[in-house]
């Protein structure tokens, strides 16, 4: 569309319900300021690709998974119609071990997220208030481990905790133990320790962002009114950083509850999580419908928890 043409489009075109005419509140982009037809034509080009991509590769697969969870088995053509059955959900509901494992996974995620946040808080506080001009450098220093390959960091813990690993051979070398400790690796504690390690740098970021948003004037006012440092922390810093704390908690909790890789590497059979049974049903056991049902339970649980979280914290705060 030529320039002169677009200039001519000054009369507002009646809008369809879902249309693109700038809302009066849309940041002052009034109609008739060249924001007419070409703006609406552009809309389609901007709108369709992401919608198609997310529809095809996000919504449809998840819906397909939901549909498969009602399928009796995967015999025959995958596309052929099947009579929905609740068999997998009833067997799932009757199998206590699935629920126990889901509970354990949620508990592990809760523990990992809580400890990671507690350990990360002083780090964020240091970076926000005490590190001074070097804060940027220190932040990079903190984040380098996070930018290191995830699989590799998990593997590093395997090298640390194994019977021939660093901790054992070091303890034997200095003579503290004679036999290697086998309790270090291949259990849930190893998974929890590794995951806390993995998430600490990441958990620092939302807390740091929240702390940096606090008005410095508040501290001066508090000090003028005679608040001691600890009172300042308890009455100002902590309450104002809570959004960041909750944000950090959920940013760790959500990926952790669905973990299956870390348990695979450092957890062994005694350290497996809910994600591992889903993986088993899609690989070894090849029972896709039951695996889909288990996946649905995981998906619904996670979305429910996030929904509760958004009641507590304002997601928009995290966007900044």
């Amino acid at each position, binding site marked *: 569309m030529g320039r002169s043409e677009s200039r001519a489009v000054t009369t507002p075109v009646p809008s369809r319900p879902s249309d*693109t005419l700038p809302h009066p509140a849309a940041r002052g982009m009034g109609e008739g300021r*060249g924001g007419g037809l070409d*703006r609406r034509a552009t809309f389609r080009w901007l709108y369709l690709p992401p919608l198609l991509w997310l529809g095809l590769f996000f919504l449809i697969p998840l819906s397909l998974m939901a549909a498969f969870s009602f399928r009796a088995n995967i015999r025959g053509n995958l596309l052929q119609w099947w009579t929905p059955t609740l068999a997998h959900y009833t067997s799932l509901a009757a199998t206590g071990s699935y629920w126990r494992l889901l509970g354990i996974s949620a508990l592990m995620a809760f523990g990992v997220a809580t400890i990671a946040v507690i350990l990360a808080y002083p780090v964020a506080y240091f970076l926000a208030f005490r590190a001074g001009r070097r804060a940027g450098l220190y932040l990079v220093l903190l984040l380098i481990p996070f930018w290191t390959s995830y699989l590799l960091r998990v593997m590093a813990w395997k090298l640390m905790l194994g019977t021939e690993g660093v901790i054992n051979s070091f303890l034997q070398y200095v003579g503290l133990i004679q036999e290697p400790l086998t309790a270090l690796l291949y259990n849930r504690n190893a998974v929890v320790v590794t995951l806390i390690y993995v998430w600490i740098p990441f958990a620092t970021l939302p807390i740091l962002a929240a702390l940096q948003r606090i008005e410095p004037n508040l501290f001066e006012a508090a000090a003028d009114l005679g608040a001691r440092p600890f009172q300042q922390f308890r009455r100002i810093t902590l309450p104002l950083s809570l959004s960041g704390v909750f944000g950090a908690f959920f940013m760790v909790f959500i990926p952790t509850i669905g973990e299956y890789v870390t348990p695979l590497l450092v957890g062994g059979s005694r350290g497996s999580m809910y994600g591992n049974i889903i993986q088993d049903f899609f690989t070894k056991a090849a029972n896709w419908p039951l695996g889909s049902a288990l996946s649905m339970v995981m998906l619904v649980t996670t979305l429910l928890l996030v929904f509760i979280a958004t009641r507590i914290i304002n997601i928009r705060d995290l966007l900044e």
Partner: protein
Amino acid sequence: MNGRGRALPLSLYFFGLIALLYLPIAVLFLFSLNANISLSFPLKGLTLDWYEKLFDSPAVLRAARNSLVVAAGSGFAATILGTMVSILYLRYQFRAREFLMALAVLPLIVPYIVLAVALLLLFSVVNIDRSLWTVGIAHTVVALPYVVLIVASRLAGFDPILEEAAMDLGADYPTTLRRIVLPVIFPAMVSAYITAFTVSFDEFALALFLAGTEPTFPVYLFSQLRFANRLPVMIALAVLLMLVTLTLVFISERIRRAE
């Protein structure tokens, strides 16, 4: 806020934690230089053999190349799609506005294992063989939220008055996007691209389900973990790749600072 004396315990804590965070990475680095196959103290000797052996093993290098290709491609797709969503969300008013945003950020909330099996189902149903393409598609989906968060926050901080000015002067909207909006958000897009790149490059949970005969580096690494004698070579390559990632991150930081 108050005296410098009080900063000491905090900085001790900070550097203590940093030391702990670097310890396993240092262990890996030592391992890649260790003359012995197993890492036990005291070290038997140091060597660069593993780095040399790296270049005799085409499968390892091929896996690394695959990862680079997937990360470059999916990062690009995610950056374009995410920028589109950001512009729509902040510059247009339409009924599905909040829905589109929610949809674009949702992959952040869906556990990877769930998305992995769902995509596996989709590709099986429509008979698409698993390949680097399927991995790349999945990575584009999970990288999208990061791109949207980075680009949208930049665009939100940019006053639309400049765009209005351009259009008052007769530019049509596509021209305004190209000449005004894109240059302004370009640094954020580069930063988003690098983030998307590193998300994909490092991703294992999805790739394990969706990679076909051509493994990405993490998938290959995982398949080699059973063989103790292959481990030092893998770690040597991983150390090299880590340097690549770090370089990218530093470049992205510099660009962000330069703004």
